[in-house]
């Protein structure tokens, strides 16, 4: 319960132009115990007051306007070291190493499993011990 409470303080921001992702993913993340904000574009995220509070960014790669990697570079320029988990519907294995090299935590290909998402979040938001790990008790 401690962890959950602690997590309630951790804000995860989701940036994706796809509406179904913006609707479904925040609910799941809240189930995990995070505070969640969803944005339809990179610009919308940058213009919000969440940039400083966000502990983890779940970021779509291909978006109209500023793309995911472009936002990554922008944050790096602003020296905002937010852990980033990229998500994409475009399965291109070659893109993954480049993103990781640029500092991303992980890159998940849609549709991704709950387990994969949890693993990425655990890397992005290391808790204080093994017991603090979010479990997948909700999964079948």
């Amino acid at each position, binding site marked *: 319960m401690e962890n959950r409470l602690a997590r309630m303080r951790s804000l995860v921001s989701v940036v994706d132009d796809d509406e179904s*992702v913006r609707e479904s993913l925040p609910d799941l993340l809240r*189930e995990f115990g995070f505070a969640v904000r969803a944005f339809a574009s990179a610009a919308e995220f940058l213009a919000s007051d969440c940039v400083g509070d966000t502990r983890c960014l779940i970021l779509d790669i291909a978006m109209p306007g500023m793309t995911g990697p472009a936002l990554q570079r922008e944050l790096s320029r602003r020296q905002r070291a937010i852990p980033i988990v990229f998500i994409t519907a475009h399965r291109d294995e070659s893109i993954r190493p480049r993103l990781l090299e640029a500092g991303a935590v992980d890159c998940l290909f*849609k549709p991704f499993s*709950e387990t994969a998402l949890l693993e990425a979040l655990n890397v992005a938001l290391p808790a204080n011990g093994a017991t603090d790990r979010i479990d997948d008790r909700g999964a079948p």
Partner: protein
Amino acid sequence: MTTTEGVTLTGGWIGLQGFNGDDLAANSATTDLISILESVDTPIVVVRRDSTIACFNKAAANLLGLSPSDIGRAPHDIPVIAGLPRMEERCAEVIATGLDARVDFREADRWFVVRISPYARGDRVIGTVLTFTNVTAFRASIDQAIYERECTKAIINTVADPLVVLSGDQRIQSGNRAFHAMFGVSRDETQGMPFYELANGAFELAPLRTHLTELLAGAQAFQPVEVDHVVTGKGQRTLLLDARPLSFPGHSERRVLLTFQDITARKEAEAAKDLRSKEELRRSEAFLAEGQRLSLTGSFSWRVATDEITWSEQLYRIYELEVGVPVTLDLIRTRVHPEDVTLLEKMVDQARDGSNDFEWQYRLMMPDHSIKYLHAVAHATRDRDGQPEYIAAVQDVTARRLSDEALAKARSELAHVSRITSLGAMTASIAHEVNQPLSGIMTNANTCLRMLGSEPPNVEGARETARRTIRDANRASEVITRLRALFTKKESTIEPLDLNEATREVIALSSNDLQRGRVILRQELDDDLPFVDGDRVQLQQVILNLLLNGSDAMNDIDDRPRQLVVTTARDGEDRVRVAVRDVGVGFDPRSVDTLFDAFYTTKSGGMGIGLSVSRSIVENHHGRLRAELNDGPGATFSFSLPCLQRTNTKV
């Protein structure tokens, strides 16, 4: 009879005025003589010493108009005889000398020669006998001869070329004016002069002397001799001396007519022309050789009957043979690609049989095993002897062929790449479109499970996420539907279309492929074809597909021309039809129903997509695609479409 003299001369002859009939009885010999004289048609008049007419015969009476009463009259009293000049004087001379005299006498248009002979009795000349010989005809022929001679002389003198007649001993007999003018001599100077002394011996030439001597000895032909001679006032001239024999029946001496023709101008013109034509020939030969070299085109002529083959230099270079070596079919065979030797022999046989122009492509294999592609076009003609001869141009199309092949390869690689690329892009876009809703479905399902599994279960939240799951599944389904629509119903542009024009464009685009397949394409397009409503690009794909299918069906046909016939025509009242007829392998009639199915193919390299797609396109145009086996070899694929009303057909 005592006065024999008087009686005889005064009495006249029987039937002849002045004859004494008594004497007739006395002397029958006289009678006979008189009779003879009477019958002679030469007028005879006897004149006494005292210049009186003693007697005359009938012919004389007729000629001179004498009557019996004229006996005893003086001749100058007779009007006609009075015309004889110095008649009495001459008679006196004849009596005095005893010698004949002759006088020309003209009576009206007749000419006579009058001979006056002494009339002697014993030693005594007692009178003269005048006989009149009619020389009118003779006189006329002499006049004519004189006239002709004058005419001839005039002609000869008018001739610009010098002419001279040489006697049998080659002396100058006579010359025309031009002759005298050219050599600056007069007639008198040259008459009888040995010909070779003329012009300081300029004509003392052995061949001329030989030929003239032969001609005079009886030869009929003379070999003209050219002599360079300086003519006063004209400078160096070239004279052509020609001669012909002159001989007349009854004249034993043979003479020659020698002509001097000034051929200087002609020689100069000929020389100039010769030079010019040589120069032109040289130039045109140089042009031709250069043209052949630049265009890599050689030429040859082939006399079929004798197998006499002549090559241009460039053709030797193409065949890489030494220029000038005799060309034979065997030699050619050594260079022709082994796979094309049969083709060569077939062409040779066909050429021997017929006399048609022909065209063929073949390959050479050089000793280093490199390949050359040649394109030959032969034109049938006749040589000087009327025998069949082919004149042909042979072009080395290797470079073009190789670049064509490289281009085709690049094209096909490009097509392949673009197909792969577009397939990859298409797959990626399908995946992206489907993955989005799938992602939502999976996330929602996870959320749903978590909500249901929490204590207490969040049923309302779970219901909401389940609803969103259904919505995302619907979205995924919609994506699939949209994709299907995108790929099965391509945007098409329907417009009035001239199928002839569309067909011609396709033929133009595919002619390279067809030529490479050695396909002979014949177009039989109906000029009066109504328009159809259709998508130009799609229908052209169908036509192209039919052409390439036909061409492919003939790939292994070598025993007959690979002929492809494209026909457009009306099909009944309200349809038009495009047909492509090949002479290829045809198809199994049992498979006719499956022919147009996707993935059905008779070709090892094909996917069978073509006919299937073609059928969909044609059916989308409310048309029908048909396949039929020909009566002869091969098959005909055709489609027919409804046509537009006539009024819309002309743009």
